[in-house]
């Protein structure tokens, strides 16, 4: 994984708020602040992990970056082009560069469509290949993700979970994108199959120089696959660091708690766990000040009133915390 320091995608103060409607008139009563001010640069060839608890906005961030959700606020700059306000026509050449791999590839496959035809679809939209060339390309893709030529004729229900994820990957890489958002691509798979798919993602990245945004709640997989990691809490950034710094020197108290909570597959080494009090607050009514203060073991008065600044504490290592 050769990462050069060239920025592929610049995400600036991106926000995505969903309206919450209620009452008889279905008026907008409130907003879910699913993504609430994310700023980061994604480098060419890197895998940037995004972690955090369920509902913290990981998928929404991925979808917003891909232009699948409208921006509430902020700027998206892809390869030097500010695409934030592009029309769908202007976006088309950029959409070809960005693809997504989903947690449940089955949901995104048409059950009545043969796998070969499903894979051809993107080629029809985005390339001028002849039908013979398209068939060639699909067979090559099947081979590349470890499936067989005879799978061309098969239907989605005839595949196992791991095979379906391979199809999802084949579809994502079919038109040679440079950037792929992987949203929990291995979470639904058995561990033995999960390891196969992780290896495949890594091999493809090396071969095609892909850049990944890798959304996951599995901190083991993230350590194994990512170069840098962003930790999110209630739509906000709490820590961003190169992978070894994050795991060896987690600095935000939330990151610390998250890492200490992972059950380790090693017997006998009883570690002290940092116990978090309470549950995740609602993202439609996030706490004032630091979003983590209601559960933070080291919170002081200031934390409930003042939002901590985003600051660099070591090269490439950023946190938002008053006390660290």
């Amino acid at each position, binding site marked *: 994984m050769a990462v050069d320091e060239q920025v592929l995608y610049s995400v600036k103060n991106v926000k995505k708020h969903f309206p919450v409607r209620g009452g008889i008139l279905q008026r907008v009563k409130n907003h879910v602040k699913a993504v609430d001010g994310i700023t980061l640069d994604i480098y060419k060839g890197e895998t940037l992990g995004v972690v955090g608890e369920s509902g913290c906005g990981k998928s929404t961030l991925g979808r917003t970056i891909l232009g699948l959700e409208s921006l509430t606020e902020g700027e998206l700059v892809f390869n030097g082009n500010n695409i934030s306000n592009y029309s769908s026509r202007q976006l088309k050449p950029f959409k070809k560069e960005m693809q997504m791999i989903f947690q449940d590839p089955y949901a995104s496959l048409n059950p009545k469509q043969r796998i070969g035809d499903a894979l051809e679809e993107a080629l029809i939209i985005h390339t001028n290949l002849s039908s013979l060339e398209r068939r060639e390309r699909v067979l090559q893709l099947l081979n590349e993700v470890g499936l067989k030529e005879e799978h061309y004729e098969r239907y989605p229900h005839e595949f196992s979970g791991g095979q379906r994820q391979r199809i999802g990957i084949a579809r994502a890489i079919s038109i040679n994108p440079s950037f792929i958002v992987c949203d929990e691509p291995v979470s639904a798979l058995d561990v033995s199959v999960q390891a*196969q798919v992780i290896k495949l993602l890594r091999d493809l990245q090396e071969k095609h120089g892909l850049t990944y945004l890798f959304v996951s709640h599995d901190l083991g997989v993230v350590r194994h696959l990512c170069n840098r990691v962003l930790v999110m809490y209630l739509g906000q950034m709490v820590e961003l660091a190169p992978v070894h710094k994050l795991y060896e020197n987690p600095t935000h108290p939330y990151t610390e708690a998250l890492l200490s909570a992972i059950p380790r597959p090693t017997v006998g080494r009883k570690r002290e766990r940092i116990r978090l009090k309470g549950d995740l607050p609602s993202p439609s009514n996030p706490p004032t000040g630091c979003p983590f203060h209601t559960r933070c073991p080291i919170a002081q008065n200031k934390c409930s009133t003042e939002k901590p600044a985003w600051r660099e504490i070591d090269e490439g290592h950023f946190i938002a915390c008053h006390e660290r």
Partner: protein
Amino acid sequence: MKETVLEVKDLVTTFKSADGPLPAVRGASFSVKKGETLCIVGESGCGKSITALSIMGLLPSNGMIADGSIFFNQKNLAEMSPKQMQKVRGNDVSMIFQEPMTALNPVFTVGFQIREPLMIHLKLSKKQAHMRGIELLKMVGIPSPVERMNQFPHELSGGMRQRVMIAIALSCNPSLLIADEPTTALDVTIQAQIIDLLNDLKEQLDMSMIMITHDMGVVAEIADRVIVMYAGEIIEEGRVEEIYENPQHPYTKGLLASVPNVDDPEFDLKPIVGSMPMLNEQISGCRFHPRCPFAFDKCMEKSPETFQVTDKQNVRCWLQEEGVEQNGGRRASSL
């Protein structure tokens, strides 16, 4: 040595199908002692839940216990009538089910659902049951339990619903608790709370527990002993230390090498090729041989015997037979 609470012998559970009965559990034998936690691990579809549901007498209508015995406190559950089983479930054995959302009834309050078993099985009055219910919620660490009694499941977070499930499962002081993936749907921080809770409760109540999971990390934190299932069979069994530090079966080794270690940046991920067979797939010899990197002729022909590694560790693999050269086996075990 502590007394044995549960003894399962040669359990075979089958499902009806157009091609005749298909076995989902193929001759499983294991036991659980008082105060002990046994973990059942293995990948999706290997038969973990069906083993548990066989013990509980709660198999789906197309499934049945075709062979074997399940002795619980000297009585064979496999031969009991549904009515007798109902009594066992209320009083001695209880289970936390795999899907927490479906396990609580959305139209009844938490209080109603926790009082009911207490009134039926322990014959408490409604008032007594209410007081006991509050105590139980407090025991599983639910804040403001008095108010919670009047709330509906959807008003609680996932972690809290799981605590309520645990409280209900413990309400009649069972001597055996079966927990089927009780933390799989939860975030790691909440999962950690539930694991700590189960460990504390088990110690307090000197209860036996069967914990089903596919997470090798969870197993290490909670198990005394472990059984590893593959395609309906128990392929390895041992103390938790034995399974992690000296795994013998190629599948157990493969499972451990498939989970990236969070604490090791250089971890060498080694996937197992292929995937779990379907119930109707015919496999000769060892059921793992099509995926096994060490398989040799005998593995394809004959189902392996059980070999004893230590007094507690058993493994079903022909590599254990004397005189078999472990080609590369040592390399895999020194991971």
